[in-house]
C-alpha cells in the first residue's frame, strides 16, 4: 500500500498520464494558435471593418437562432425517443432502437441538397400542392427551407442521434433499480422521468447536446448551400469575397468563444449532477408495454424521426440518381480515399482521445487545458484549422505534397474530432466509480497496470463508440479535406460537394448515397455493440 502512494510511484503515474497529454495538447493547439495569431495580427484590416459595420451582428444573431432552434428540435426528438425505446414496449421498438441512429451516417450537406430540392418552389412537394389545389406559386404559404429555421430543421434531423445515443446509454446504464425504487414509492411515471431518470441522465444529455451544437456551429456545407448566413458562412465569405484570411480568423475566434461557452455550460451540468453509478445491481430492464393507441403513436413518432433525418432525403437522392441514370464510373477511387483517410484519422483520434480522457480523469490544469483545446477545435470550422495547419507547416518550411499533405490532413482531423472520441471514452470512464481506481492503487497496482488492467477495459465500450463516431465524422468531413488533400485524393464528400455547388445535383446524388452507405456499416456495428455493452449483460 505504501509503495503505491510513494512519491516515486506518484511521479511515475504523473509522467505516464501527463506526457502524452501534454504532447497531444501541444500538437492539437498549433492550428488553433496559428488561426488566433493571424486573427490578432492580420485581422484588423479594411475587410474586417466592413464586416463589422454591415453584417457581423446579423451573422451572430442568425447563428444564435439556428443553434437555439437546433437544440430545441434535437431535445424534443431525441429524449422522448430514447425514453420510449429504453423503457417501453411498442410495435417496431426493436427496429427503431437502431433505425434512430441512421441519420448519423447522413452529413448535413447531403440532407440539405435533398431537402432544398424536395421543398424548393419547383420541387415535387410544392408542385404537388399546386397541382392538387390549382393555386399559383405565390398564392400559398410554404415553409422556406432556405432560412435559419430550415437550416435548423436539417441540422437537427442529422444531429439528434448524438443526444439519442447519450440519453439512451444513460437511461440504460442508470441502475434500473433507482427507477424501480421510485415506482415502488408510488411516484407517477412522468414524475419518475422528471425527478429520477432525467437528472441522472442530465450529464450525458448535456454532453450529447454540446457535441451536436458544436457540430451545428461548425457546419459549412449545409448553411452555405441553403444560403443561410451563419458566422461560419460569413467567415468563408470574408475569405472568398474579400480574400482576407485575417478577418476570417477573427470570426473564427467568435466561434471559439461560442464553443467555450457550450463547453462551460455542459461542464456546469456535469458538476451539478455528476452521479456515479453506485448500485452494483444490474438486471434486464422490464419494458412497460404501451396500450395500442399510445403504442402506435410512439411507433409513428420514431418512424417520423427516421424519415426526417434519413428516409426522405435519401429516397429523394436515390430517385434523382435513378431518374437521371448517372453512372458511378470514377467514384471507386474517391471511395477508397474516403475509407483510407477515415481509418487513418480514426486510429489517431482514438489514441489521442484515450490519453486525454485518462488525463482528464486524473484531473489537473493540463487536462482541463487539453479538453478546452479539443472542444475549441471541434467548434472551429475545418477550413480554419486547415488554414492554421498550412500556415504552421509553411513556417517550418514543410512542403505540402504527397504524404505530408495527408499527415497534415490527419492532424487537422485530430484537432477537429478528437473531442468526439474523448467524450464517449470519458463518459465510459465516468460511469465506473472512482473508488475502482483507488482500489487498484490500494492493491499495489503500478500506474501502468492500473491503466492497462482497470481503466482500459472500462474505457473499451467508450472507445468503440468513439471509433465509430470518428470514422463516420471523418468520412463526412468536407472543408479541411477540400483544402488539404493532395492531387488525385478526392474523397466522396469532396466530389458530392463539388457537383452540388456546381448545380449538378444529379451527379452529386450518387457520391452522396455512397458516403451514407459507407457510413452505415459502422453505425450499424455501433448500434449492435451498444446493445451488447450494457453492464450486467455477458
Amino acid at each position, binding site marked *: 500500500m505504501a509503495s503505491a502512494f510513494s512519491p516515486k510511484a506518484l511521479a511515475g503515474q504523473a509522467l505516464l498520464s501527463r506526457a502524452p497529454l501534454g504532447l497531444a495538447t501541444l500538437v492539437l493547439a498549433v492550428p488553433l494558435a496559428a488561426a488566433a495569431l493571424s486573427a490578432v495580427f492580420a485581422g484588423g484590416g479594411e475587410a474586417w471593418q466592413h464586416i463589422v459595420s454591415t453584417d457581423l451582428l446579423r451573422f451572430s444573431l442568425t447563428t444564435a437562432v439556428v443553434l437555439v432552434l437546433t437544440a430545441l428540435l434535437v431535445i424534443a426528438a431525441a429524449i422522448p425517443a430514447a425514453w420510449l425505446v429504453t423503457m417501453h414496449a411498442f410495435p417496431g421498438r426493436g427496429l427503431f432502437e437502431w433505425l434512430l441512429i441512421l441519420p448519423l451516417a447522413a452529413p448535413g450537406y447531403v440532407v440539405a441538397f435533398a431537402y432544398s430540392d424536395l421543398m424548393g418552389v*419547383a420541387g415535387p412537394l410544392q408542385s404537388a400542392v399546386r397541382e392538387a389545389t390549382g393555386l399559383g406559386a*405565390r398564392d400559398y404559404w410554404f415553409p422556406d427551407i432556405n432560412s435559419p429555421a430550415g437550416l435548423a430543421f436539417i441540422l437537427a434531423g442529422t444531429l439528434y442521434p448524438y443526444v439519442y445515443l447519450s440519453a439512451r446509454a444513460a437511461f440504460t446504464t442508470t441502475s434500473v433499480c433507482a427507477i424501480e425504487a421510485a415506482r415502488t414509492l408510488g411516484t407517477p411515471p412522468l414524475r419518475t422521468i422528471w425527478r429520477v431518470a432525467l437528472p441522472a441522465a442530465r450529464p450525458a444529455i448535456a454532453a450529447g447536446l454540446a457535441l451536436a451544437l458544436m457540430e451545428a456551429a461548425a457546419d459549412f456545407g449545409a448553411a452555405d448551400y441553403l*444560403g443561410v448566413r451563419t458566422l461560419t458562412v460569413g467567415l468563408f465569405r470574408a475569405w472568398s469575397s474579400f480574400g482576407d484570411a485575417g478577418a476570417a480568423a477573427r470570426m473564427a475566434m467568435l466561434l471559439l468563444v461560442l464553443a467555450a461557452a457550450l463547453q462551460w455550460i455542459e461542464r456546469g451540468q456535469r458538476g451539478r449532477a455528476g452521479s456515479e453509478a453506485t448500485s452494483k445491481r444490474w438486471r434486464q430492464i422490464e419494458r412497460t408495454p404501451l396500450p395500442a393507441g399510445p403504442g402506435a403513436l410512439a411507433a409513428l413518432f420514431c418512424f417520423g424521426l427516421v424519415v426526417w433525418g434519413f428516409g426522405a432525403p435519401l429516397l429523394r437522392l436515390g430517385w434523382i440518381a435513378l431518374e437521371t441514370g448517372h453512372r458511378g464510373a470514377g467514384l471507386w477511387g474517391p471511395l477508397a480515399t474516403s475509407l483510407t483517410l477515415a481509418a487513418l484519422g480514426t486510429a489517431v483520434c482514438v489514441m489521442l482521445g484515450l490519453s486525454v480522457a485518462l488525463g482528464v480523469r486524473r484531473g489537473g490544469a493540463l487536462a482541463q487545458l487539453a479538453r478546452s483545446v479539443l472542444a475549441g477545435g471541434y467548434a472551429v470550422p475545418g477550413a480554419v484549422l486547415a*488554414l492554421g495547419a498550412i500556415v504552421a507547416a509553411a513556417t517550418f518550411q514543410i512542403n*505540402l505534397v*504527397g504524404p505530408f499533405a495527408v499527415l497534415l490532413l490527419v492532424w487537422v482531423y485530430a484537432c477537429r474530432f478528437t473531442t468526439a472520441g474523448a467524450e464517449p471514452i470519458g463518459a465510459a470512464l465516468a460511469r465506473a466509480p472512482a473508488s475502482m481506481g483507488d482500489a487498484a492503487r490500494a492493491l499495489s497496482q503500478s500506474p501502468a497496470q492500473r491503466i492497462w488492467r482497470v481503466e482500459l477495459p472500462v474505457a473499451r465500450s467508450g472507445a468503440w463508440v468513439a471509433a465509430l463516431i470518428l470514422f463516420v465524422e471523418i468520412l463526412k468531413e468536407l472543408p479541411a479535406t477540400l483544402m488539404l488533400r493532395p492531387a*488525385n485524393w478526392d474523397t466522396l464528400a469532396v466530389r458530392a460537394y463539388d457537383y452540388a455547388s456546381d*448545380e449538378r445535383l444529379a451527379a452529386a446524388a450518387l457520391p452522396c448515397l455512397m458516403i451514407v452507405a459507407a457510413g452505415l456499416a459502422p453505425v450499424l456495428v455501433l448500434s449492435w455493440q451498444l446493445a451488447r455493452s450494457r453492464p450486467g449483460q455477458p
Partner: protein
Amino acid sequence: MPARFSLVSSLSALAALSACGNAADTAQTPDTTATEAAAEPQILTLYSARHYDGDEALYDRFEAETGIRVRARESRAAQLLETMKAEGAASPADVVIAADAGTLWRFKDAGLTQSVESEKLDSAIPAALRDVDGHWFGLAKRYRVIAYDKENVAPDSIAAFADLSGEAFDGEICARSSSNIYNLSLLGHLIETQGAEAAEAWAGSVSGNFARDPAGGDTDQIKAVAAGACQVAIANHYYWFRLAGSESESDRQVTEKTALVFANAGDGPHVNVTAGAVAANAPNREAAVAFLEFLATETGQTMLVAETREYPVVAGVPLPDGLIPPPDAEPVTPLSRLGENQVAAQRMFDRAGWP
C-alpha cells in the same frame, strides 16, 4: 482484436500512401525526368476549379499529344487560392483553371500567376478575353443572361440589364446571392459601363424588385420562373441549356416554359470566361504553357466545352450540342476590369441590401 486490426490496416495504408507520394515527387524533380525521360512521363500539376468527368479524357488527349501527364487537383477556386497562398514558393501547381475572370483576378492580385507571352494564345483568343498583362487567358465563354417566363414577358422588355430596375418587374425578379462571383462580375461590368453611381442605384432597384430573398443557385432561379414564383431570373446561359438537355423530364419542362435573352450590359452582353493561368512558381513552366496552348486548339476547345455547354473562345470551333449561336457582338470591356471592380461591387451590393 478488431481495434488492433484497424490500426494495423491503417498503418499499412499509410505506408502504401507514402510510397505513391514518393514516386510522384521524384517524377517531379527535373533531373530525374531528364535522366529517365523514357520511363517517367513529365508531370504537369493542374489546380482546377472545374469538376467534369470528361476532363480525364481531355488530360489523356494532352498526354497522347505531348507525353506530359496531367495530375489534377480539383477544388473550389477560393480554396485553391488559399492553398496556393499558403504553399507559397513550394507550391506544386503549374496551371490554374477557374471560372470567371473575377476569380482569376484574385489569383493574379495575390501574386500567384505569372505573365506568359505566347503567339498561339494571343492569336487564338480575343484580346478582351485575356488579362492585359498576359496573366490569364479566357478559354471558354459563358454569358450571364436573363431567363424569362415565355407566357408573361416580352423579350424586348428585358433587352438590357438596366430594364430590370424598372417598376414593371416589381416583385418579379429572382436572383442568387450577391456574394456569388457571377453577380460580382456582372456588377463590376455595369460599374464600367454605367459608372459607379448608376450601378449602385441599379443594384438597389433590382433588389427592391425581388420576388423573394436570394437563395440557391442559377438553376434554382430558372426553375422558379418556370414554377411561376417570378417572371425573370438572372442566370448563366449554360444552366438553362443543361436543363434542356437533362435526362429528367421535369428539368426539360422548365425550359419549355422559359427562354433566354442575351441582355445588354451597356456595351454588349455580359460575357465571362473559364480561364487558365500559369502559376507564379510553376515547377514546369514550359509544360504549363503547352497545356494552355493545347486548350486553345480546336481539339482542346471542343473537349473543354462539350460537357459544360460553354461557348468556345476560338473562332470557327463548332458549338457543343444544343447551344444556340452566341450574340455577334464581341465584348468591349476588358474582362480584367471586372476583377478590379470586385470589392467595390460587393460593397455596393451590401449597401443596396442585395443579400
